[in-house]
C-alpha cells in the first residue's frame, strides 16, 4: 500500500492492500434507516449528504418520523472490514423515487444490495425491490425494527411481501453496529451461494 500515507489526523483502520473489496448497495424507502445503518457500521468516517427536508417536499415526502428532519439527497458511504480478508464498501442510496437515477448509478459495480425496510411502509419497499431485481443485484431484505412499531414474524412478512424462499430476510436495528454488521454478513453469505467463484 505504498500509494497511501496514513496520517494521525485520520485515525481508522489501515488496509493492508491485499483484501478483497466488495461494493455493496444499501437501499430502502425514505426513512428506512439507510443513513443510520451506514453511520453505525462504518469503520472510517462516513460520508453523508443530508439536507433538511423543506416545505417543497411536504405532500411528496412522508413526514411521520418526528425526529427525522433530514433526508439523503445523493449518497451515503462507509467502509467496514468484515474480517481480515474482506472489506465492504457501502454505498447508500437516497430512498425517494425521484432519486432512482442516482440509485442506478450507485449500483454500478455493486455485487449485492441490502434492502432496508420499515415494515410499517412495505408498499414503499416494492418499487425498490423491483428496481434492485431489474438491476440484477443479489439482495437480502433487512427489516429495521423501530421502537414502538408492531413486530411481525418472518413468516408473516414473507407472506405479505410474497417473497421467494430463496431471498433471505433478516431483522436488524440500524442504529446498532453489530446488528447492521450481522445483516451485512447475511448478505455476504447469500452472495457466496450465488458466486461461481467464492469470495474467501
Amino acid at each position: 500500500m505504498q500509494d497511501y500515507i496514513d496520517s494521525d489526523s485520520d485515525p481508522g483502520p489501515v488496509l493492508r492492500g491485499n483484501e478483497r473489496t466488495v461494493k455493496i448497495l444499501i437501499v430502502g424507502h425514505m426513512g428506512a434507516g439507510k443513513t443510520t445503518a451506514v453511520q453505525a457500521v462504518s469503520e472510517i468516517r462516513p460520508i453523508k449528504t443530508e439536507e433538511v427536508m423543506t416545505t417543497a417536499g411536504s405532500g411528496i415526502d412522508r413526514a411521520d418520523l418526528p425526529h427525522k428532519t433530514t433526508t439523503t439527497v445523493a449518497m451515503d458511504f462507509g467502509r467496514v472490514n468484515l474480517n481480515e480478508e474482506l472489506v465492504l464498501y457501502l454505498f447508500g442510496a437516497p430512498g425517494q423515487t425521484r432519486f432512482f437515477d442516482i440509485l442506478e448509478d450507485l449500483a454500478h459495480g455493486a455485487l449485492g444490495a441490502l434492502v432496508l425496510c420499515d415494515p410499517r411502509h412495505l408498499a414503499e419497499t416494492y418499487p425498490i425491490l423491483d428496481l434492485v431485481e431489474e438491476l440484477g443485484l443479489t439482495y437480502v431484505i433487512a427489516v429495521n425494527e423501530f421502537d414502538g412499531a408492531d413486530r411481525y414474524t418472518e413468516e408473516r412478512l414473507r407472506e405479505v411481501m410474497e417473497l421467494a424462499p430463496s431471498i433471505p430476510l433478516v431483522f436488524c436495528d440500524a442504529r446498532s453496529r453489530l446488528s447492521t454488521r450481522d445483516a451485512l454478513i447475511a448478505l455476504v453469505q447469500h452472495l457466496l451461494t450465488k458466486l461461481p467463484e467464492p469470495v474467501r
Partner: protein
Amino acid sequence: MTQAARPNLSWILNELLDILHARHALVLSADGLTVASSDGVNRNLADRIAASVSGLQSLSRSAGEFVTEDNTVWQQTMVQYQDGYLFVIAAGSGSHLVVSAGSQVDIEAISYRMEKTVERLGDPLSVAPREPSTQG
C-alpha cells in the same frame, strides 16, 4: 473486486502536482472506488473522495439535460470552495481523475495539464480489471 494499488499511476499523479497551487490528485473507478492517488492522501481519505466524486460525476452528468435537451456529454466538473477548487474529468473508460487546488491556481493551466495527464495514464483500469459482477 481487485484492490488496485498502482505505484506507477501514483507517480504520474505526483507529477501533475508540480503545477503551482495544485494539491492532491486521485484516480477513481466510475463506480466509486480508489484506483490510485498522489502521495499525501491517506487511504481512508482516498476512499471517501473516490465515493463522493463518483456521486458528483453522476449528478453532473444527469444535470446535463439542463444544458441541452438531449443531455449533452459530460466533460468536466469544477467546484469552487472558499479556499480552492476541485476538478473532475474522465480518465479512460470507467474511471475519473480528480484534482484539488488552492484558489490561486491557474484554472486553464490545470485543466490542460489534467488532460495531458489522462493521456499519459492510458486506461487506468486496464491493468487492474474488476471481476465481472452481476451488474454490468
